């Protein structure tokens, strides 16, 4: 067993740390060490995107990184979207537009959409589909997810206008 290493990260605004094996995948670190189980595992070949989180402001597949690589970084998971009890417009949008059914892909979709809207506040439908092309969904056929993101973009634009 390789020497454990200290990983210090800021997760959803809170400082966390643990000693971990180098081979510990970031997704297992998040789910089992940090006990944030909103981030999911849907495959073993890095295709499904259910494990998507933001690391230092960029979406990554947390199953395709080692926790040690994130040392010193900032992580945002789905649990970090809600602020002071207020749902993020994306979360509102997913509920309003029926953008989820079984909910398993939803955290990853929310994180990818979050990053998309950060980089592009007025995405077209094509932009949205492209932006979530690294996230697989079996239940919704993506159509209402697109609507959910459009809802959020609209709401955030209103909020920005105020």
């Amino acid at each position, binding site marked *: 067993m390789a020497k454990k290493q200290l990983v210090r990260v800021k997760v959803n605004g809170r400082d966390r740390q643990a000693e971990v*094996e180098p*081979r*510990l995948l970031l997704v*297992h670190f998040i*789910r*089992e060490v940090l*006990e*944030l*189980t*909103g*981030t*999911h*595992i*849907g*495959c*073993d*070949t890095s*295709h*499904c995107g*259910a494990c998507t989180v933001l690391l230092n402001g960029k979406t990554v597949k947390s199953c395709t990184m080692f926790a040690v690589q994130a040392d010193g970084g900032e992580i945002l*998971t*789905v*649990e970090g*979207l*809600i602020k002071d009890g207020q*749902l993020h417009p994306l*979360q509102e949008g*997913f*509920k*309003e537009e*029926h953008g*989820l*059914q*079984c*909910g*398993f*892909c*939803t*955290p990853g979709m*929310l994180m990818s959409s979050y990053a998309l809207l950060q980089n592009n506040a007025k995405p077209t*439908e094509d932009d*949205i*589909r*492209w932006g*979530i*092309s*690294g*996230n*697989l*969904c*079996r*239940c*919704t*056929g*993506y*159509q*209402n*997810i*697109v609507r959910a993101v459009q809802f959020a973009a609209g709401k955030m634009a209103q909020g920005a206008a105020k």
Partner: protein
Amino acid sequence: MIHKTSPEIGGMGHSIRRKEDLRFIQGKGNYVDDVHLPGMVYGQLVRSPYAHARLKSVNTEKAKKLPGVLAVITGEDLAKANLAWMPTLSYDKQMVLATGKVLFQSQEVAFVIAEDRYTAADAAELVEVEYEELPVLVDPHKALDPAAPVLREDREQKNNHIFHWEVGDRQTTDQVFAKAPVKAQVHAFFPRCHPAPLETCGCVADFNRATGKLTVYMTSQAPHAHRTVFALVGGIPEQNIRVISPDIGGGFGNKVPVYPGYVCAIVASLTLGLPVKWIETRSENLQSTGFARDYHMTAEIAADSAGRMQALRVKTLADHGAFNAAAQPTKFPAGLFSICTGSYDFPNAFCEVDGVYTNKAPGGIAYRCSFRVTEAAYLIERVVDVLALELKMDPAELRRKNFIPAEKFPYKCPLGWTYDSGNYEGALKLALDKIGYQQLRKEQEEKRKKGELMGIGISSFTEIVGAGPAHTFDILGIKMFDSAEIRIHPTGKAICRMGTKSQGQGHETTYAQIVAQELGIPAADVSVEEGDTDTAPYGLGTYASRSTPTSGAATAIAARKIRDKAKKIAAYLLECSENDLEWEPGRFYVKGAPSKTKTIQEIAFAAYTNIPPGLEAGLEAVDYYDPPNLTFPFGTYVCVVDIDKGTGEVKVRRFLAVDDCGNIINPMIVEGQIHGGLTEGLAIAFMQQIDYDESGNVQGGTFMDYLLPTAVETPHWETDKTCTPSPHHPFGAKGVGESPNVGSPAAFVNAVVDALSHLGVRHIDMPITPWKVWNVLKEKGVTS
């Protein structure tokens, strides 16, 4: 009569937003892998790399010595407890852990248990298994050859034939064919594919030595049935088993069978007295759990020269893999495949299916198939199009000419089913009008002159769901009723529990809406729970689109029982006779004096505080609903495609789905189901196959090659509806979850064939990959 309720009440027809969403959008779902119990350990299976081999030895010494490993279980260990084999849902048996031989690549051979999953993975590699390879059988057409290797040495019958099943009138059908002026035939293969829900299968088995109770958190679409199976197979008293199906990340039939991993985890927990978690990887899911389809079908239609269909003849070879583990009702080894007469008024029909074993993973019933209805609907809609080409008739016209007319319902088809209601002409007309069919045909003509390839595909499917009436339907002997229990609290809120189990279908919302409709209690005040066998009434679970037809019906009936009692209480409170009372959602009032009224909330309070003499306290009911018949949702789908001659790529330009599932509880949820199912149908038609090479190595055993469409490949879906209620269902609903998978593959394939039919193409097997199209174009000399 269905009263219209206000949006605040949220009864039938309201697209109220889902109650379950709040936890999912916050990442607070409780899926099986989220379950963490004190002292929990982890199991991992060791699997065979060979498709067919003698198991010479399984050496677990190295694995056991790895620090952190608690135990390693082998087939031999299980055999001592008579658990090396388990019954399947098709009255076959399946090895839990292999003894003697292995029969498919990825078959379960040993189970290691360790303190954490990383150690378990390391330990699994250290289990040393010696195999002696045997000749492999992967071609089902060779399964019945005398020279074929006999796969199942455990059976008395020493061949690879599982069953022969037939229905209809062979003799008359053959006679009609002999004389028919027009015949059309298609050999249509429905490839083996896999439902691949985003959450894989798994469980946490927790045997508590102090209490003697076994709790199994598991990805189960049918928790009660699973509990009973565990009790019978494991010899554990059923009251000491609790199955909890928490949140399930998609099922699509993948989570109906009992898998070796569950049994191993339970055995490990019983042995160690610790909670044991087993979560399979995606590769394991694709390579060993219940696949779907793998039907080699031939359909023939005999018609008169005017295009009136006279007879249908169907012969199918069913590849079941190494064990018959298909989850289907007992009397139907080919599921409900005999719905293959579809929407058409055939005077005669005959259908036969032969099932065989091969060296492949077991399964067959999955992926929103409604018990083989996907295969049947695909077949009939394909052969009808081939007939249209034979007759040089427009495929819409041919369908219209042969639809079962509205006045013939309830309709008894020659293969035994009584369709409850239908209006096929209505759905077809709406679909064609909305897609602009005539203009599209004109456009196609113009494009053909320029050498451009465009196609229009129609699928007018009828399907059969809601299994099913006790006289005909059971799984392992358990009748296929379903249940609902409703209890109203003093403050007028309600809690309900059903025997079904949602995996994303929105039951926490839709069942609440049924109660809202029947009792006028706002859906927001109705709590719905499913999946805990300690609290929910017995049911057969959710698959085959059966929830609304069975449990939904039970919910309505239970609510009506409550309403009956509420009426008595209201009469008592209003000091009048029950006959003087009228009902509208939420209240009883005196006929002609509407101000003399009691709300359901007031009645509920009275049920605990001011109980009429002679009546019991409380306001609750349970119903176990035995459906009198199945239900028959239907629809017409139209698909428009353009083909890139240079690459063979097929682009879906438009897809319109007109569905009829009778009365709808929540239109938003139904639309979502259609979107999802069409996306699965698209994948099946164009991208998906689990195939095996001649050595039995699986091709397409990971998401690298088993392809799920992303948002980019998925087109925009257009949906619409007609409404033909089911006459026998308490609120006229039929169920709809699988219709899009049932109806769409034929629409896609018909469109592609239609694009190429002027070149003489009659059929292309799925998956219609770009290279298949390109090969056809090359053969016909029309690549760019």
